[in-house]
């Protein structure tokens, strides 16, 4: 047949394409036993320097690779213990905390950890003045006075002096945050360029003393940790931990089921339900200090009416959303302090009640409802919650026009206070209640050009009564009295504030069954692989 020659050549071309060879190529399954591989969306990393890092992913990495002066018990966060510090005392005037540093400990480089390193690390964070520096600035420590405020008083003693006698727990919790990580002064200064305190180098390198050391970071690709051979505590069972950037949930699930990763960190509710049925996989979860909420801009005259704010709080079907979109991913929570924080209010007075909401709207002068826009980040579960709320609000006659956008886009609009309703999430910066109280209940200057862009400011909510209460609470040294102050503030914000607080985030991970002792703490920087192992 004339065309047989063509067919033969076409077949030859197919063979030449190498498909057959490819399909027969070797494929490895299962990860090495001494290596833990996690799939995680880690494209938020912009720096590995503890003075600058502030994202979920880098906070976790710092938690496994750097040590701080102190830490807290993950089961009972009120119990604070020394890490690099052996002990500490608070001066009679309540302004100075004197730390005694443990002797004989080393950095990964082999250099000893001394008081000089501790003072340098904290001073450096203030002097570099990157985003998380405010955590130390709030104790009255500035670039100008930092060398006096934080100083080594001996080879193994450091004084931390504040401008006011703050509640000790407030200062101590702040010192558990990643900005207070202890860096290797000698190593960092060896890489100093133009007086940058080693910033240019440490952005992409490592100078810590934690159970793991950072070996490699390839942006949008991978972070590799290796066991620190000079770690002063119990050595990590794993030799290596790899965070692979895998943005797609479904891809994470496939890789987990295949055994090519050990832990999937970004699965959605449907994927979690599906993999939970796999006998080789288990689900692990932990409540986090992150809240999902609606911010109601008080520049919008309708939303500025107290009855409207109240009505919208009765127009969310918390239970239904919690059982569906937020299943596995969060629990209903309506106060600004997440469960687990000192003074957190855990009761949920608002339920879905369209009739009550309609009555409140009628009282406000909107018996037929009104129309508002909602800026929504195009990512789950936020989009899902927004769509559900759109349907809920409609039951009260409130028509919501959803404006989708990328994260930075919606945030830009939010920070310029040009939104009507913004749906977002907020994670506490450290374990002390002041972190959230300050942002939800304090707005010292409601002018458009104000420097403090708290959440209260972003929603143009003036806080003449609550603001001073927030400031007073950080000076209350009695924990019980302090807890009572925060409780009162939360109830006030729940009742009158421009926030419809919806859920407290639950972080969920799906793990292969052979992974043991992976810890998920209340904060992102205490998701720990330091004791994890594989059978």
């Amino acid at each position: 047949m004339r065309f047989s020659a063509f067919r033969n050549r076409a077949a030859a071309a197919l063979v030449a394409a190498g498909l057959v060879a490819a399909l027969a190529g070797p494929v490895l399954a299962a990860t090495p036993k001494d290596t833990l591989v996690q799939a995680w969306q880690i494209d938020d990393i912009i720096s590995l320097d503890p003075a600058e890092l502030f994202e979920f992913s880098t906070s976790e990495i710092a938690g496994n690779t750097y040590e701080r002066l102190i830490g807290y018990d993950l089961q009972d966060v009120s119990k604070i213990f020394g890490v690099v510090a052996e002990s500490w005392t608070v001066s009679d005037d309540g302004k100075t905390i004197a730390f005694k540093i443990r002797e004989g400990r080393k950095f990964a480089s082999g250099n000893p950890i001394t008081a000089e390193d501790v003072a340098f690390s904290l001073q450096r964070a203030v002097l570099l003045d990157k985003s998380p520096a405010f955590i130390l600035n709030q104790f009255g420590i500035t670039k100008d006075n930092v060398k006096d405020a934080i100083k080594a008083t001996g080879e193994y003693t450091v004084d931390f002096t504040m401008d006011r006698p703050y509640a000790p727990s407030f200062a101590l919790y702040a010192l558990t945050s990643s900005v207070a990580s202890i860096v290797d002064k000698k190593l960092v200064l060896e890489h100093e360029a133009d007086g940058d305190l080693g910033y240019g180098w440490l952005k992409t390198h490592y100078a810590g003393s934690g159970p793991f050391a950072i070996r490699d970071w390839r942006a949008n690709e991978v972070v590799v940790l290796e066991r620190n051979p000079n770690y002063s505590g119990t050595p990590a069972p794993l030799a290596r931990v790899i965070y692979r950037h895998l943005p797609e949930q479904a891809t994470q699930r496939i890789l987990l089921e295949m055994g090519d990763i050990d832990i999937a960190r970004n699965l959605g509710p449907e994927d979690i339900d599906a993999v939970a049925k796999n006998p080789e996989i288990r689900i692990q979860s932990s409540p986090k200090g992150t809240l999902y909420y609606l911010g109601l801009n008080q520049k919008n005259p309708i939303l500025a009416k107290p009855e409207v704010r109240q009505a919208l709080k009765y127009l969310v079907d918390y239970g239904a959303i919690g059982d569906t979109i937020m299943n596995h991913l969060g629990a209903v929570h309506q106060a600004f302090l997440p469960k687990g924080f000192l003074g957190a209010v855990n009761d949920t007075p608002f339920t879905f009640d369209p009739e009550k909401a309609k009555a409140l709207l009628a009282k406000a002068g909107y018996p037929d409802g009104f129309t508002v826009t909602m800026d929504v980040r195009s990512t789950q579960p936020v989009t899902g919650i927004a769509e559900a709320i759109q349907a809920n609000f409609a039951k009260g006659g409130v028509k919501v026009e959803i404006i989708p956008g990328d994260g930075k886009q919606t945030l830009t609009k939010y920070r310029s206070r040009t939104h009507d309703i913004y749906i977002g999430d907020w994670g506490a910066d450290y374990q002390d209640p002041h972190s959230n109280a300050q942002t939800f209940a304090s707005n010292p200057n409601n002018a458009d050009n104000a420097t403090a862009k708290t959440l209260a400011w972003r929603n143009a909510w003036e806080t003449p009564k609550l603001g001073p209460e927030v400031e007073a609470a950080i000076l209350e040294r009695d924990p019980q009295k302090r807890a009572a102050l925060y409780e009162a503030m939360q109830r006030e914000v729940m009742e009158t504030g421009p926030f419809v607080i919806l859920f407290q985030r639950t972080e969920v991970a799906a793990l292969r069954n052979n992974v043991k002792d992976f810890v998920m703490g209340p904060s992102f920087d205490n998701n720990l692989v330091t004791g994890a192992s594989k059978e």
Partner: protein
Amino acid sequence: MNLEAPAADHDRTRRGARAALGLAGGLADFLLTLAITLFGLLVVTFVIGRVVPIDPVLAVVGDRASGAVYDRVRAEMGLDLPLIEQFRIYFMKAITGDFGRSVLTTNPVIEDIRRYFPATIELATLGTLIGTLIGVPLGVFAAVRSGTLMDQIVRIVGLVGYSVPIFWLGLMALLLFYAHLGWVGGPGRLDIAYDYLVTPTTGLLLVDSLMQGQMDVFWNAFSHIILPAALLGYFSLAYISRMTRALVLNELAQEYVVTARIKGLSEARVVWRHALRNAAVPLLTVIVLSYATLLEGSVLTETVFAWPGIGSYITSSLQNADMNAVLGGTLIVGAAFVTLNLLSDLLYRLLDPRTR
């Protein structure tokens, strides 16, 4: 007296001079086109970067920074300068090859491009190879069997390639070939066990591993690239086979084909030696354009297969208003596009004497 020889020499010299002039003119044309295209890209991307409603300072300082830190970083980034001044500074740096640093990766943009672009080149090249090696014969086959069931099947295959979302197809392919059959490697360029074994030279893993004699790494990289490449190849195939069919059909209707058949040439010779050869000239442009499109980076394919390519790099940079990265990436991709177009023009001239 022989006046012919000097005249012929003179002609040859004139022809040589004309050819040299033509070449120089062609080169000048190319450089001018490249310069105008890149300048246009620079202006458009710069303007887009400044009008998008995303605050680039947020990408650097995050949401929690104090007002003082925010203002300082804004000034450091030069965003407080007039727009025209910002453009002048960027332009002066860009023409010296300094695209600045990426905010997201902290690396110089040119270094990032050196890392991400080879991953895309490797994928696009293999994809185009697959698309061409299968698409061209399929297109010829469909043209020869025009109107038959086989022709319809080829057209449907092409249509499916055009219509099915690559994101979905990618996931299905992963499920089937990786998860169920275990024939290919999973997402990413390599298995973890093979990471760090090859020192990047060209950035093309297949080439680097071969050059360094790391056959294990080569085969592992091949098992990872083949699925996304086959997927992209399928999409190229859809386009290439349709165009091949149309071009060959057109040639088969020409008189010279009838003449060739009357002369008693075999059908295969008529199709492959005559019809396809004449169709090859425009077909080459089709293939080169298809390749250039893949070189822009297929964001969805790169996302599904966790492929660290230029498409994802530019997209995530844009989402974070990391404008140095967006501008640098766009310019490099633009330059590649223009160069490939020129290459296709040159090949066109080489293959088709009428265009010389």
